[in-house]
């Protein structure tokens, strides 16, 4: 088998994994058993498909194979009759033309159940993230551990503990009722965005493995958008992640950070920006504005500006005003101050920055933003002090060398 064939099969596994696991969990009523059985099926598929090619409906193939493996595994347990009966009952009630395969709406519901269970608020945030990537994203424990810079054993333990809690504490495998839905959807989106940011903040060459988390988050976001097409914020988050990710090749140069202002806009992925902008339009038409859509709208204004100087700063400032009203936070206030500086001049920007001076005293990007504005106003001494403060506050090697370069420009 060629490398490309092998990669094609890998891609199929990754995109089908979450769907197959979601159905199996409902049918067998057990996370571990479902995952082990799907793993068995994947191994079987690998040898089978290499010989005879990928079947037309790989998801159905994997579901059937995984169910057989689950039955095999169940038979090896004591007291398996009850569980087997339950499984057979579930399969029978999955009405379908083909071999008792669940119909599309059923698969759709299974996936939603899995998402909401993995992102249940009774689980710690880090457990939610790990479980989502493992069961829904089909990542291995080793891959997740590398992405989050922890050891494989720590990550394995975290996942085992989360699954045990789902089982022992009786976390239900279902889509939450309407009354709880808005909060629970927010929680799901927060998990996806956290995964994305974990990859996004690790933007340098030697952190390539971590950058894959961005693609994973985008893939999960798209799946959630497809499952909940009326959730404007789900679409907004998808658009936001895609817009940011489309700038990936311009964000770093030989390992150091390149600010938006200095990025080579020819390196941006135009096709992705266009797709994401259309997605954002669709979200906005649903008329349920929210923070992800606003942030996506800001990102879209940057992405669609021909140059930094011709960016629509008035509009961006207005969007930051809305964001700040909706979700006030010091970091949003910082970004708003930068937009004010661009729209109304550096002096006004500095005044806006003052508002968060105490709250962000320990935040390096507050001091570097201030330094940049002081630099524009040719207040070099103050700029030097601010850059030095920023440098002393950052632990990240890349950010540090970037700030040192900026400081070197003055002296």
């Amino acid at each position, binding site marked *: 088998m060629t490398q490309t064939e092998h990669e094609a099969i890998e891609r199929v596994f990754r995109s089908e994994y979450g769907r197959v696991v979601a159905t199996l969990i409902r049918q067998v009523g057990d996370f571990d058993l479902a995952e082990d059985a799907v793993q068995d099926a994947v191994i079987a598929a690998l040898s089978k498909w290499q010989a005879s090619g990928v079947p037309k409906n790989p998801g159905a193939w994997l579901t059937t194979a995984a169910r057989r493996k689950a039955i095999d595994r169940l038979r090896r347990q004591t007291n398996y009759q009850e569980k087997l009966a339950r499984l057979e009952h579930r399969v029978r009630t999955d009405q379908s033309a083909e071999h008792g395969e669940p119909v599309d709406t059923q698969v759709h519901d299974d996936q939603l159940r899995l998402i909401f269970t993995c992102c249940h608020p009774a689980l710690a945030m880090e457990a939610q993230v790990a479980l989502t990537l493992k069961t829904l994203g089909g990542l291995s424990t080793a891959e997740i551990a590398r992405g989050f810079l922890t050891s494989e054993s720590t990550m394995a333990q975290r996942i085992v503990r989360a699954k045990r809690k789902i089982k022992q504490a*009786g*976390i*239900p495998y279902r889509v939450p009722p309407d009354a709880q839905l808005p909060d629970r959807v927010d929680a799901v989106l927060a998990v996806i965005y956290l995964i994305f940011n974990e990859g996004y903040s690790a933007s340098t060459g030697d952190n390539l493995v971590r950058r894959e988390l961005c693609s994973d988050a985008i893939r999960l976001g798209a799946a959630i958008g497809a499952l909940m097409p009326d959730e404007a914020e789900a679409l907004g988050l998808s658009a936001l992640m895609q817009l940011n990710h489309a700038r990936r090749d311009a964000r770093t140069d030989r390992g150091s950070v390149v600010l938006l202002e200095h990025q080579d806009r020819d390196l941006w992925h135009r096709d992705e920006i266009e797709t994401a902008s259309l997605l954002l339009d669709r979200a906005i038409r649903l008329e349920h504005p929210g923070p992800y859509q606003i942030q996506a709208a800001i990102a879209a204004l940057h992405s669609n500006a021909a140059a930094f100087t011709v960016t629509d700063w008035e509009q961006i400032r207005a969007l930051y005003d809305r964001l700040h009203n909706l979700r006030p936070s010091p970091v949003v206030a910082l970004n708003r101050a930068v937009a004010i500086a661009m729209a109304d001049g550096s002096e006004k920007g500095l005044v806006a920055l003052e508002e968060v001076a105490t709250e962000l005293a320990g935040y390096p990007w507050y001091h570097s933003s201030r330094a940049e504005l002081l630099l524009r106003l040719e207040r070099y001494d103050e700029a030097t002090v601010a850059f030095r403060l920023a440098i002393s506050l950052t632990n990240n090697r890349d950010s540090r060398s970037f700030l040192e370069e900026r400081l070197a420009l003055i002296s």
Partner: protein
Amino acid sequence: MKYALLIYSDPTVEASPEDMAKTMEDYYNFTNNINERGINLGGEALDAIETATTVRVRNDETLTTDGPFAETKEVLGGFYLIDVADLDAAVAVAAELPGSWHGSVEVRPVWDFENAQQAE
């Protein structure tokens, strides 16, 4: 599934007689409500932490101490045992419990011996 709802509160907070009466009424209503729904398996309010005695047996010797006077501010003040479908239902009941409005309520599933043995 069976869950214990463990009610924790800060004993140093002094309530006025009116507040006390209101709290008693809230608990009375809550208990009636879960009785009517048939999910109440029982529960008790505990006397003040100053009345507690801790027992340890070490080397066949029974050691009794006054307390516990742990460093934590919130102490166990009472509990309910309920039987509901799942954790979401248990959390919903905990949110109706007056104890969660001021202090906190810990929701703990009751260990299921039968199922645990089956899983072995």
